């Protein structure tokens, strides 16, 4: 094109600040997820205290700041695992960027393990709620909201774990290298998001929903 | 040019519609067109005033914009004769002009906002005005229940209200509830609509200014027979209303001549759904039949309440109102006649 224009007085091309498309794409995915979870959280908040019958959150949930005994704090304990996994994945990505594959594998496996503990914890909690307390989606509003919100979060954790496991397998088979750090980093963004959402879910379900 | 004519033609037809409605020829007992341009009650009148104002404002904006567009087309249309002759001067924008058409609409909108906000607070009464007649309206699929509370009776599909009380305009305050899905109570000549939402109690304020019969209709889609969920409102003079109330308060008449039909009714499943006060029939699922014959319609306006139609209804309501919640009771023609003879005495 520029071949035709011999006009020497052409101005400089304006600088174009194109963004990296992978990062932007994942950010947009996260944006849409925020609106998805935002909706579920808004509904949860709306229905707090509107149940017609029990069990109520106070009967069956484990509150985070429960007085002397430590036992009921399972959920909070769990949450610590999930949140810590964010640190591991951050360290893992750092390691990959530096090409330290062994360190990467270690932290990556830790992330999966911690995420797995969280998921297992959720499983135990659900087992208790469903089998012992008789709470399910169709029991009352609390059940509907709880299992939907926590369930969707758990589904996201599961997806994250699956993806991370794939990366782990690829790494162990020797297909993952320093040059893939960018893509692995994107996966870590998703994981951070899943963790971040949990802070809100936790606050809404176990604090506001319990004490409010 | 043609475009302008077509467009302004629509505005004219709007106005014509209003004008034709404004001079009703109205035999007694027949209803006027359910037009919001024939307000017969205070809130509807307030709304109509606001309506004229916004129609006016919007018409002016429309005509001005339309004029600008049409003029631009005529004035700047490229003539066939005009040879190519290069491009017209390029104008990239103009701050003052653009500022003007940001600010002017803002001002118009602000005025509109003030007027309508006032209207909202005038019409939307959160508490019943003193001395109101209070009626609970329950929307069912697909008929209306009117519970006169203190007056001690329940009726269906036809709302009766007084015009005045002691010579003063009478406020009527409706409490709207739903038994199933969302409906909407809309009698355009009396007030704007108000949704009837399950799990909520909504309110609607009426203050009729002329006696007569007014037609309205459920305005929120509520399933199969949404189209046949009509509302009839009778605005009576004080005395007429008192007479109507007195009759409604009575229990169902006992007429030995139709005892056979009565017994048949009482031994059929009818009583599970319908109430006839003073008898064993006390179902609440369906319209109260105590004074069925005081109503002019069957099935919330699906049919006129004539002896023939009543027989057809009881024989098989699904023919008249397909999908409605009253099943065909599989009576014989004979039984149907007996029952209907009885029902016809329920004046």
């Amino acid at each position, binding site marked *: 094109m520029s071949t*035709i*224009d011999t006009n020497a007085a052409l101005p400089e*091309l*304006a600088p*174009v*600040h*194109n*963004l*990296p498309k992978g990062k*932007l*794409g994942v950010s*947009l995915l996260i944006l*849409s997820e925020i609106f998805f979870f935002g*909706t579920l959280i808004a509904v949860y908040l709306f229905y707090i205290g509107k149940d017609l019958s029990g069990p109520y959150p106070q009967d069956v949930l484990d509150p985070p700041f429960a007085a002397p005994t430590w036992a009921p704090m399972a959920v909070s304990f769990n949450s610590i695992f999930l949140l810590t996994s964010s640190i591991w994945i951050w360290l893992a990505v750092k390691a990959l960027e530096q090409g330290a594959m062994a360190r990467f594998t270690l932290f990556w496996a830790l992330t999966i393990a911690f995420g797995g503990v969280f998921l297992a914890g959720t499983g135990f909690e659900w087992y208790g709620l469903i089998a012992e307390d008789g709470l399910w*989606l169709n029991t009352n509003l609390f059940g*509907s909201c709880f299992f*939907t919100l926590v369930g969707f979060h758990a589904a996201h954790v599961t997806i994250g774990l699956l993806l991370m496991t794939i990366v782990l397998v690829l790494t162990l088979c020797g297909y993952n290298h320093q040059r893939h750090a960018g893509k692995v980093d994107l996966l870590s963004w998703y994981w951070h998001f899943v963790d971040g959402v949990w802070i809100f879910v936790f606050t809404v379900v176990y604090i506001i929903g319990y004490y409010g | 040019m043609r475009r302008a004519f*077509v467009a302004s033609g*629509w505005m004219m*037809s709007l106005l014509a*519609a209003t004008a034709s409605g404004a001079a009703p020829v109205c035999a007694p007992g*027949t209803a006027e067109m*359910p037009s*919001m*341009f024939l307000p017969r009650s205070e809130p509807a009148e307030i*709304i109509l005033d*606001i309506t004229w104002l*916004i129609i006016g404002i*919007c018409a002016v904006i429309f005509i001005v914009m339309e004029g600008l567009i049409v003029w*631009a*087309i005529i004035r*700047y249309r490229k003539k066939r004769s005009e040879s190519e002759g290069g*491009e017209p001067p390029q*104008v*990239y*924008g103009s701050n003052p*002009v653009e500022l003007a*058409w*940001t600010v002017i*609409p803002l001002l118009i*909108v602000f005025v*509109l906002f003030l007027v309508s*906000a006032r209207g909202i607070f005038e*019409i939307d009464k959160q508490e019943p005005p003193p001395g109101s007649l209070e009626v609970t309206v329950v929307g069912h699929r697909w008929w209306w229940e009117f519970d006169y509370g203190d007056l001690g009776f329940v009726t269906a599909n036809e709302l009766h209200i007084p015009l005045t009380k002691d010579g003063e305009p009478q406020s009527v305050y409706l409490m709207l509830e739903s038994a199933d*899905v*969302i409906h909407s109570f*809309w009698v355009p000549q009396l007030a*704007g*609509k*108000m949704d009837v*939402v399950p*799990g909520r109690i*909504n*309110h609607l304020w009426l203050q009729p200014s002329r006696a007569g019969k007014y037609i309205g*209709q*459920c*305005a929120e889609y509520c399933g*199969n027979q949404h*189209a046949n969920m009509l509302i009839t409102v009778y605005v009576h003079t004080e005395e007429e209303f008192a007479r109507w109330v007195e009759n409604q308060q009575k229990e169902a008449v006992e007429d030995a001549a139709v005892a056979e039909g009565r017994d048949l009714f009482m031994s059929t499943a009818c009583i599970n759904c319908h109430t006839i006060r003073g008898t064993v029939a006390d179902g609440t699922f369906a319209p109260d039949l105590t004074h069925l014959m005081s109503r002019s319609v069957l099935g919330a306006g699906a049919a006129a309440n004539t002896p023939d139609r009543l027989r057809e209804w009881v024989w098989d309501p699904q023919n008249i109102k397909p*999908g409605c919640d009253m099943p065909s009771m599989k009576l014989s023609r004979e039984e149907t006649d007996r029952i209907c003879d009885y029902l016809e005495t329920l004046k």
Partner: protein
Amino acid sequence: MTTAPESPRLALKAPPLSRLHEWVVTVDHKKLGLMYITSGLLFFIIGGLEATMMRWQLAWSDMGVVMPDEFNRLFTMHGTTMVFLVGMPILLGSANYLVPLMIGTRDLAFPRLNAFGFWLFLFGGLLLYFSYFGGQGLYGMGSAPDVGWFAYAPLTERTFSRGHSTDYWILGLLVSGFGSIATGINLVATILCMRCKGMSLMKMPIFVWIMLIDAILVVIAMPPLAASQVMLLFDRSLGAHFFDVQGGGSAVLWQNLFWFFGHPEVYILILPAFAFVSEIIPVFCRKVLFGYPLMVAATVAIGFISLGVWVHHMFAVGLSPAVNTAFMASTMLIAVPTGIKMFNWVATMYGGKIRLHTPMLFSLGFLVQFLFGGLTGIMLAVVPFDWQVSDSYFVVGHFHYVLFGGLVFTIFAAIYYWFPKVSGKMLSERIGKWHFWTLFIGFNLTFAPMHVSGMLGMPRRIYTYHADRGWEIWNLISSIGVLFQIIGVLFFAWNLLRSLKKGKPAGDDPWDAWTLEWSTPSPPPAWNFDVDPEVRSRRPLWDKKHPEDPDWKYE
């Protein structure tokens, strides 16, 4: 003009099966764009036929053309189809086709995601229509959803809508909705990451700007719908109580959730219309778009405000006067940025040399009809007036003026404008003018009287009405209008098919236009541009055609 080499063409046509295969596996934005648009147009015919049935039934009082439940399915499927299976794919398709060409790049940011999005959309749509067969098992017809396009709870709960038809509504839209989100993400990423040299944000064609805002709206408005639909699905299939009033759920909550999506959705639908005319009007007036920066600002403002007005669909629900007043204010505010756009388009016409070709005719039709629809929208925003006409035919009139008179008219404008680029053939101007005038007359005949019947008390979604209501004449006119519309659509179909066979060759730049897509051959080669374009202004081709007075001096 271009020194680009002839794009190499295969001399032999591939056999049909492998050509089909090529379309099925393609990840090319142009092919996907065309598939989006074609399926949108086919769905338009289906939705139009449904509407025709309704108008036939309503042409006179007490008609018996269809049964009540059939009628209810018709308007549900008609509305759902037109919004989700006509408006959405055509907007996503045209953005797909044009955005990369306009920003001078090879494809969307994520081509495979793009294909995925398209197929999700298509299968979602087919799933919705499968309800006609699958809604109650396989016996008999007529089991499509019948709950209205906004599916108000609790009517959609299992208690009141049995069988599976409502589940089809949920799942079909859920699937196609995910496709839309994917494509929305893709479009934003494309626009923000792949612009050619020199195309800073403020040098993007206005079309691209509007599509950017539109795609962002898609990304944030569709997920709440998906979440709500999932909750409804849980209610229906797992016995949850979100919208189940007997179980303490709230009917109004669904309305809030739906309209939080639904209102942005209608702006998602109209923004592409703005995008089309913002490109077409300048070219056919031979003038640069008036007030580009303010246009951009107005688009952003519309995007923002549209997220905060949803309660105007719920004025009659019985919310408090304060809430109604607040949302009335935000709703009315939208007149300001929209007005700015109207005024800027008209200002673009002033002092121009207007060529009344078919794309321009349709754009003018848009200006007139959208103005009308916008003003009735403002009337609806006036709460007391809305209490009268909400859920009446006045609303039906309003939204057909903006959706049909606005969106569909500009879709036709866009097809007449870009068809030469896409196919290399011109559409017939003569048939195009017939198409325009029959559709224009038919459209106004059909939808203008609805405002009257609405104010005369006719609610929407009624399958019939009694003779003594006095609504016949208005309905009859409406229904007669549909005949004209059908003729118009047939003219269009004829024009398309005829031109594909034997239309005049178009050349690269038949309209003497200014944006990058016209600098590449028609149809564009798979790689779009032989040389990566560079731009110095919003109208790169203008600069090239008028080196003595280029745009970049003024921007």
